């Protein structure tokens, strides 16, 4: 559960520290405010629809309705949505990690003609909002017959300038001497990438994994534009469809929302150890 390594706690004994007490008070109040929507969501997911808005708020339902978590799988094709989203997210994340780190290695450690020009093409598009070119991109996909396919979303998200940039920044911080030594030992460039660069880049790879996983899993506008068939929908637009169809079924909506949060929570908790380090070391902090 650690975001950064804990500094050793050592404090000389002293009298009541009001500043510290105030800090704790503020932190706890803030944390409760930040958490409240999630707790409310969890609590509502175990209630009957008519009890959701009961006031004063009953944070822990006296008669938890676990059936909500069973009903959502039959009422909407939630299993299918989860499968679709998992499939897309895993493919995009793997493609992103492999192709970005591959390209980044060349940009960071190899010399070749037009290197700077090609890298500039990437840099120039980083600040370009996707929304600026989403319409031509949609037309291109339609022309290629990829409308209403998962392949369209994979192509859209797997080759980002951001990934190449992030990995390249990290690779730059790895000393060239390591690569030189490996070359003298007769290792191929592919070998250096696989055996030396990747193992040393866990913070950057974790950061990119979290970013890609979270963005793809939570993506809304992309699937909204490309996927109109129910059987192709991802969990985000699936839940959205559910919400517009059954506006009053709060308990079920909340249960489905909780289900959609769990994978992201797991990936985040598993990788967050590397995350701060990744943000700090890849120039994402400027």
């Amino acid at each position: 559960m650690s975001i950064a390594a804990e500094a050793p706690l050592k404090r000389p004994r002293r009298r009541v520290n009001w500043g510290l007490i105030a800090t704790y008070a503020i932190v706890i109040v803030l944390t409760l405010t930040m958490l409240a929507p999630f707790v409310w969501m969890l609590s509502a997911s175990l209630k009957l629809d008519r009890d959701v808005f009961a006031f004063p708020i009953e944070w822990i339902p006296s008669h938890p309705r676990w059936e909500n978590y069973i009903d959502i799988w039959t009422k909407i094709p939630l299993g299918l949505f989860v499968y679709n989203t998992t499939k897309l997210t895993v493919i995009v994340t793997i493609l992103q990690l492999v192709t970005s780190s591959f390209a980044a290695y060349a940009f960071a450690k190899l010399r070749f003609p037009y290197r700077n020009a090609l890298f500039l093409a990437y840099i120039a598009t980083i600040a370009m909002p996707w929304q600026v070119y989403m319409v031509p991109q949609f037309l291109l996909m339609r022309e290629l017959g990829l409308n209403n396919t998962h392949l369209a979303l994979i192509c859209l998200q797997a080759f980002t300038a951001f990934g190449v940039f992030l990995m390249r920044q990290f690779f730059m911080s790895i000393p060239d001497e390591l690569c030189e030594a490996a070359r003298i030992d007769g290792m191929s460039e592919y070998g250096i990438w696989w055996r030396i660069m990747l193992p040393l880049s866990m913070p950057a790879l974790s950061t990119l994994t979290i970013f890609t996983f979270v963005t793809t899993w939570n993506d809304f506008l992309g699937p909204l534009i490309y996927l109109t068939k129910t059987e192709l929908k991802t969990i985000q637009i699936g839940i959205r469809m559910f919400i517009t169809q059954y506006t009053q079924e709060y308990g079920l909506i909340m249960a489905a929302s909780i289900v959609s949060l769990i994978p992201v929570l797991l990936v985040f908790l598993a990788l967050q150890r590397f995350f701060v380090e990744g943000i700090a070391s890849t120039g994402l902090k400027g």
Partner: protein
Amino acid sequence: MSSVTEQMTDAAATPARAQVSRRRRKIRNMLTAYSFIAPNFIGFAVFTLGPIIFAFVLAFMHWDGNNPIKFAGLDNFWRLFSDRAFHAAFWNTIIYTGFTVPLTLVCSLGLAILLNQKIFGRNFFRTVAFFPYVASLVAVAVVWNMIFNPDFGPVNMILYNLGVDPQNLPGWAADRHWAMVTVIMFSVWKMMGYFMVIYLAGLQGISSELYEAADIDGASAWQKFWRITLPQLGPTTFFVSVILTIQSFKVFDQIYMITQGGPGTSTLVLVYHIYNEAFISWNLGYSSMVALVLFLLVLVITIVQFRWTMEREENAA
């Protein structure tokens, strides 16, 4: 004579052979390098670079996606001036950005300073603060709508119990005066954890000697904050505000889910207008012109950032 020629050819041949093999090695190295780049670059060129170029062309065309494409000259550009929805979207985007950026900055800096202190359970608190950022937008937006439901949501119930006149209870997303406030609050809550992490990295980069020297001089906590922490965080603050500004210009998802741009046009923003013009009205050319406006806004911010970073690097060098 002959020996001289032999000598000459020999002398010429060795470097020539070396040159050939050097060139071969160079070509081989080049091919290796390109093979590293190709998988990503081909995808990037086809699905990003191409569409970007096409977007600029499309802004000067009339097209509904089915009938033949027609050259429009500056028609789409002039239409920006008469399109009331565009004006609303433009100003709403500016208002949204103008409030979201400073609010998020202050909140994330405050959180970072609080959670940089050595307190018990600090890592748990950091995780909690960060979680809204990774949580699915659809899920948290639904909760937000329920909590801020004007008729029976807990927020208004609490306000009512605190003695607010039912007539004066805010209508939140359903009220044109409160809809933007609701969206801004949501965005600040959702994003501040991420920028807190960036600020934490910045805070950890400040040398502790500065604080020790200030302690010797008897500086108060407040003075230390204004004279040391804030100036030292200058680069971080600048970076955060640039990223935040660009993100705010592109806002769409939370508005689609919380207010659908309404009531009326009170929360219509640029990307929402692009989406409506393209995928609802099929005015592909005009929607690209609006996208061009968005691009120019982002470009200005990026140039400012670039200049500033260059200056900083020159000063450092």
